């Protein structure tokens, strides 16, 4: 999405694709991110119109990661700063996005795995 497009266009795209944020790019450079939070705070709560350009309501210069950032560091940013989406940028070029979106899914899957492992360990102990 370009910074000159309207908030209405951004809302339509987020609704259609069922996503919570959009990366705003000028050419190849990431210049901002537009999130549900930005829309709530800077449009809805501020009583501003949907005809505004995205540039006026996006979060400029968002927290970005490099591909070398560790998952631990990314996780700290997500849980401490309480942001849900982190663009991954290499040499000023957007190469991906890391999201907390499915963290819950993973934790659940992982917990089930952990539970199976514990159950297995308990069976082994009984065997001894």
């Amino acid at each position, binding site marked *: 999405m370009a910074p000159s497009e309207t908030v209405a266009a951004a809302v339509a795209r987020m609704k259609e694709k069922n996503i919570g944020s959009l990366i705003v790019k000028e050419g190849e450079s990431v210049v901002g991110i537009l999130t549900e939070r930005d829309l709530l705070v800077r449009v809805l709560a501020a009583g501003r119109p949907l005809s505004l350009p995205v540039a006026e309501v996006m979060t400029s210069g968002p927290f970005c990661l490099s591909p070398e950032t560790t998952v631990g560091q990314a996780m700290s940013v*997500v849980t401490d700063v309480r942001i849900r989406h982190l663009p991954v940028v290499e040499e000023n070029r957007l190469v*991906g*996005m*890391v999201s907390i979106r499915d963290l819950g899914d993973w934790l659940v899957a992982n*917990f089930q795995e952990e539970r199976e492992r514990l159950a297995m360990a308990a069976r082994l102990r009984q065997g001894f």
Partner: protein
Amino acid sequence: MYVTIASVLDEKGNETVQTVDADITVARVASMMATQGIGAVPVMVDGRLAGIFTERDALMRVLGRDLDPTATPMGAVMTKDPVTASPATSVEAALTLMSQHRCRHLPVVGADGALVGLVSVGDLTVAHLRAYQQVDVMAAGVRRLLPHGRFTGIVDLTRLVVSSLRRVRRT
């Protein structure tokens, strides 16, 4: 050994959960959420939990339908009868609920039906990671998540974590 929602609420400092009534306008609630830095608010009718209003509802049901926030009551745009947790629910069971119902907040309701709190996916994630100390599996670079170095839409941090975890276990 389960971490429960009750202990997550304790850790949050036991502050009284902010609620709104169903007849209040979206504009007032949005401004409250903006100034207080909250992402979701339980909506009450006659003192009972009737719904929840989230950033997602603001996007999908208010901005997405171009409704006038000063003329739209909460009751018209809230998510009705939200999925809830109890104080005794484990963090993992609550995350399962969030995952199944694709939501990021759960109102917490006591045995007597009274609202006692609200937990977010962030609260639960932090609680789970703290309880299980899974810091050691997160040392890998996020590059591995980006196929062929190309932009592929949303890349899931959690998949990298789980693949790291599996790798660590195998060795």
